[in-house]
């Protein structure tokens, strides 16, 4: 987790939006990251990310006070917030971070808020206290049962959908596979389900088409049309394939970064 000084982004951003960051001002990877929070007074935004590739590893190794290359944003359309009635917010792993501002805004708009936080294991459950403070009901669930219930988020989600009255809206942010199964869970109940997609991106302004996804049989661009879409319309299978596209190369860049660090006598 890092806080980044970006006064203009901090001032403009709304729940659901993201930024694109790069660690060197010159040439390198541009990575989209969701905004987990903001301190408007200090002019900082909070980014929470996992070490997955070279850029995020470099960011994780930064010392307080160092310069991040650049931050552009806020990008994407803000979440539509209004009083729907009962809103279920489902977060998977790191997805809890962008979910928190949305959940907070939903609660503030007068909704009854149910939060479901899922993770592989206890250590990966983040922001639990923050969610506890705003939720009318909170379910924590881990794959291995090391914290909260044991199982997958789809189980409590299904139970909640079975209640009468049904929830009015479900918002899911997490790994693509988890969003896909949440949508399959809510589909038979006809509960509107919003998902926030985190695709490959380059410019974030609607120029490159790298962020394209298929929604309702049409090509949509996450950076200008999204990032939130009706989950029942999203073709997750295509999206997951495209997300897999750069895995191998990212791995390679990350390996080289680690090697380089070893050579200069740092651990990783």
């Amino acid at each position, binding site marked *: 987790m890092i806080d980044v000084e970006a006064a203009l982004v901090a001032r403009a951003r709304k729940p659901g939006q993201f930024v694109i960051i790069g660690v060197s001002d010159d*040439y390198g990877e541009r990575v989209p990251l969701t905004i987990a929070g903001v301190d408007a007074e200090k002019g900082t935004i909070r980014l929470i990310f996992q070490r997955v590739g070279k850029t995020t590893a470099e960011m994780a190794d930064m010392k307080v006070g160092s310069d991040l290359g650049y931050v552009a*944003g*806020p990008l994407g359309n803000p979440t539509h917030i209004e009083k729907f009635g009962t809103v279920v917010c489902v977060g998977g792993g790191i997805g809890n971070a962008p979910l928190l501002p949305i959940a907070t805004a939903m609660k503030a708009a007068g909704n009854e808020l149910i939060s479901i936080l899922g993770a592989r294991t206890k250590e990966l459950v983040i922001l639990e206290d923050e969610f506890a403070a705003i939720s009318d009901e909170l379910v924590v669930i881990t794959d291995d049962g090391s914290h909260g219930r044991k199982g997958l988020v789809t189980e409590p989600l299904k139970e909640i959908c079975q209640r009468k009255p049904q929830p009015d809206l479900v918002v899911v942010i997490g790994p693509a596979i988890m969003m896909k199964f949440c949508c399959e869970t809510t589909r038979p109940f006809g509960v509107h389900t919003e998902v926030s997609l985190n695709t490959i991106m380059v410019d974030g302004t609607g120029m*490159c088409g790298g962020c394209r996804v298929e929604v309702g049989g049409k090509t949509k*661009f996450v950076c200008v049309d999204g990032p939130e879409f009706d989950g029942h319309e999203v073709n997750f299978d295509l999206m997951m*394939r495209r997300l897999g596209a750069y895995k191998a*190369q990212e791995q390679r860049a990350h390996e*080289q970064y680690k090697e380089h660090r070893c050579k200069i006598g740092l651990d990783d």
Partner: protein
Amino acid sequence: MTDDEKYLQELLAKEAAGELKPSERFKIPAQDMPTQDGVARRSNINEVAEGYTELEARLEAMRCLRCKTAPCIKGCPVKIRIDDFVGAIAQGQYDEALAIIKENSLLPAVCGRVCPQEVQCQETCTVGKKFKDPTQGVSIGRLERFVADRDTGDGSVPKVAPPTGKKVAIIGSGPGGIVVAADTRRAGHDVTVFEAFHKPGGVMVYGIPEFRLPKAIVQDEIDVLTKMGVEIVCNFVVGRTRTIEQLMNEDGFDAVYIGVGAGLPRFMGIDGEHLVGVYSANEYLTRANLMKAYKFGEGSDTPIAMSKKVAVLGGGNVAMDSARTAVRLGAEKVYLVYRRSEKEMPARIEEVHHAKEEGIEFCILQNPKRILGDDEGYVVGMECLKYELGEPDDSGRRRPVPIEGSEFTIDVDTVIVAIGNSANPLIGQTTPGLELNKWGNIVVDEKCKTSLDGVYAGGDIVLGAATVILAMGQGRTAAAAMNEYLAG
């Protein structure tokens, strides 16, 4: 003295005596552009066309007849006094030549390299007409580049008028934005350029590759702006970071120029376009250029597929650039698939020529039917159809029609789609009251003013996909109107 030098001296002497006849000018051989070797350049990104030597430039300039009517000027979108600048080169007065060009064009080093001269000034050149071949006309573009490149920059920066206290915001740092910045700054306004990317320059840096337009040239132009006192703010996405409304109502900007360029890439709408290994040309070129993907693993860490067999769809400059970039990124086989014939290709002739020299296989009168993938969703091939030319369509070009049953499959692992762009939707979506046409392009009047007061626009966002020179021309028009508006 070499033979050519002697020849030039003789020609000059005759000209000075008023005795050089047109027939003698016609005999001067058209000067070829020195280029990097076709094989060697496949594995480097250095500029392909190396530029005229002084002798070549002066001989080429001597071919110009100095026509009274100068039909070349009519073909130039910004009406450069071509006959005069070419004449100055023949006389060896290069500074004079550059000054003449700069009266009308601010980016001669760029335009000399990327303008489609064969359909502009050179199309109407009398010498080309005489040989019934526009490529045999005076090489105006190469001469323009020659003088621009000789300008080592004596450090002189255009004069800036005393401060007016007015603030101008420019959205996008492409050629249009650069020109508006220079012209409005010269008038003494306080000018800020907002750019979404982390590097300024627009398509000239993230689209057109290094081997055709070295980034240093664009950087020089940006440096001039900075020296003039223009502020350039990168990583600023207008419409998101701040809206135009906020810039004008809250941040004190008195006038705005929108030069955000073309937007969302078009796809074919065929099966398989979501497979891994299918890119829009914009994505592919941006990754390769701006992020130096060709240095992947040595300091630059953009992931880009290491493609071996590539199909590029399209026949314009963007398609040529993609194909030639693929070659340089190490592809063994690059096909350029175009559904019309070579004559209809909108790309610059020189690029088509260079692409062929670099071993790109032209598959004309063919069009993909679907892209084939493997179980994991990676591209493994493309099924195409053969086409023939039918009746002329609205554009006057003969319409390509598919030949039934002519399906065949080519073996590729990457497909790059370069069939054009639609308008960038972001500014339209976030600016109430801004009039757009049905394609989403911004509507402007002859002064490049939009439906909003104080807001001007030009370049690809107005024209659809256009050219550097047209964007520059609109920038000039808009800047003049903005200066007038701000003075009033």
